């Protein structure tokens, strides 16, 4: 006679596993994601595979921007400006959507057309009127001296017509009493020279929104374009391209040229990546094993990222993440100014978030203590903050 107790326990376990799966078995820890590229498993992978799946800046390999309308948008603005229209444009998108790549490709187009341009990538926060004038004067090769705003605008309007591209506008965002002066100065310069020069500004979506909500930044632009995240099919194609580049012919016994057509593991990964390429790359590498045949690999179904550590964060830590995602990065001093707490407390909060694997400490930047969201999990964190009403 079967043991009813055992049978019931067994049935309950099966039902529980089906409807309420254990998170520990079906998710991957946040710190595991962020530290993956330092893990022994990653280091043990084939060099070709690692170079194909490196989560660095989107290079020529990921030339999705060519297929997209975004480039056409910039070229349309350029044509309108050339035809004498008073045009300035802004582009924004989530971190990792390829904004800088798009700008580089745009500058290549300008080079082909022998159009003079200046590409300015902001690298530190602008704190006052003189900061804005100085950085523009330096990048536009205007004679270096102490300019007042009107003098600078005059000097700028003496230059031959050119395209002025400003990247990383998140360095304009700040929660200080003097923030308005910075935006007002830049606005005055753009508006006064808009007829002569074509201004193109690019920034991360959350920074852009903050500038628009707080300072009506959108009024500076005649044209704005939101660059959406990668679609499922784009990520799928990109991953297939990377597998092909890595020299692999079959994945889970499916030939690489048929991966796009069938219900392949790559499709599954593309679906779970939620528009974030870096997460897709991580899912691929974290779940693969080498096949028995040459140039073949197996990919197991990917696990979801476990956001449980985010749920345990305090209110000030969640606000910190929200401010970092709008500022692009925050130093200890900036954090201390925004939250009006001691420098030590600020340092402790930022370090705690770094230890959890949510933040990166930017050692290479001029401001050595600047913390930013880890690119690989930034999309996950931003979505969580939006759902929790810390971002809007």
């Amino acid at each position, binding site marked *: 006679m079967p043991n009813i107790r055992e049978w019931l326990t067994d049935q309950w376990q099966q039902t529980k596993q089906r409807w309420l799966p254990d998170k520990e078995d079906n998710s991957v820890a946040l710190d595991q994601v962020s530290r993956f590229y330092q893990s022994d498993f990653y280091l043990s992978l084939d060099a070709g595979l690692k170079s194909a799946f490196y989560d660095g800046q989107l290079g020529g390999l990921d030339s999705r921007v060519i297929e997209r309308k975004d480039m056409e948008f910039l070229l349309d603005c350029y044509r309108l400006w050339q035809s004498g229209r008073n045009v300035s444009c802004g582009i924004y998108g989530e971190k990792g959507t390829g904004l800088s790549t798009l700008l580089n490709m745009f500058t290549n187009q300008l080079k082909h057309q022998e159009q003079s341009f200046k590409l300015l990538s902001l690298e530190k926060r602008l704190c006052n009127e003189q900061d804005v004038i100085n950085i523009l004067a330096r990048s536009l090769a205007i004679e270096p001296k102490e300019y007042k705003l009107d003098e600078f605008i005059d000097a700028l309007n003496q230059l031959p017509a050119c395209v002025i591209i400003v990247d990383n506008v998140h360095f304009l965002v700040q929660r200080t*009493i003097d923030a308005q002066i910075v935006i007002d100065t830049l606005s005055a310069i753009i508006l006064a020279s808009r007829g002569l020069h074509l201004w193109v500004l690019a920034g991360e979506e959350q920074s852009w929104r903050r500038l628009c*909500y707080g300072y009506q930044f959108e009024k500076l632009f005649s044209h704005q374009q939101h660059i959406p995240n990668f679609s499922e099919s784009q990520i799928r194609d990109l991953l297939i391209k990377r597998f092909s580049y890595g020299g692999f012919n079959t994945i889970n016994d499916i030939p690489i040229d048929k991966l796009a057509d069938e219900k392949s593991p790559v499709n599954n990964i593309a679906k779970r990546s939620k528009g974030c390429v870096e997460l897709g790359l991580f899912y691929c590498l974290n779940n693969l094993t080498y096949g028995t045949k040459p140039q073949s690999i197996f990919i197991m179904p990917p696990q979801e990222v476990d956001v449980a550590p985010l749920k345990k964060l305090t209110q000030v830590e969640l606000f910190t993440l929200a401010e970092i995602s709008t500022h692009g990065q925050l130093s200890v001093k900036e954090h201390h100014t925004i*939250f*009006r707490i001691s420098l030590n407390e600020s340092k402790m909060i930022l370090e705690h978030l770094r230890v959890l694997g949510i933040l990166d400490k930017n050692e290479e930047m001029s401001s050595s203590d600047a913390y930013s969201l880890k690119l690989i999990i930034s999309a996950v964190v931003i979505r969580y903050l939006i*759902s929790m009403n810390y971002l809007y």
Partner: protein
Amino acid sequence: MDTDVLQQFIDLFSYTTLMSILGTLIATWLLLVGIRWVINTLVNYNPKYRIQLSQTFPVLRVALWLMATLYIVIGIIHPPESVIYASLGSLGLALGLASQDAIRNLVAGIMMAISPRFKIGDMVQVGEHYGEVISLDLSTTKLHTFDDNIITVPNADILKTPISNANNGELNELVVIDLDLPVSIPVAKLKSVALSAAKCSHYVFLKKTITATVFPIFKQDFYYHLTIKAYVLDVRLEKAMATDVAERVIEALQDKALLEGSVFTSPIALEHPLQIKPIS
């Protein structure tokens, strides 16, 4: 009620009928517990829609209890017409006699569920109490005040009291911060500092407009009465935002060496002045 009707009434409640009624009541209660659990889980996953999700429960509860009552009367007891009329008469009499408090509150609770004056999660002022609505029961409403007290207000009182609802179903709400400042500060600078200070606060919902107005007033001496109106990200952060913005304004004025004399701050959303801080 004559003897026949009474006998018919007693006959209706057999052991099986009573068990069925009990079963229906337990099933309804369990269903409501389940619905509450689902709503709370959804709220935990999506706090942004806290108010919208929470407001569904009071309506569902009234609807389910009404349906259960109807099912018990029509589906289980199934009384003959004479008993229905006799019971309705008795019920009417009971309602008439006992409608002083409990029934009045219950009726008010049903009316509030049908035509709600506020929702769970709203910040309301009921009489002298100001707080977040945390529960809308059939007979009482519970408010959570900023002093961490739970105030229970009978629903009948709510129906006859003017209610001030600060957010009306939205997470953000307008917070008004009043400051009385010395007249030595230039008005334009004061307004500029006030607007910038409000934008600096991480509690402020920047999607909605921030305004600052200045009026001269006389309080033993002439003062500028500064009013900052800004929306807070979440109603629960109302006091934190009021304090933060007021302190930022004062600090900014001190940094710019614009403050001489006394400062009085009193966010009007609060019952008492936030602080009265003489500045030397």
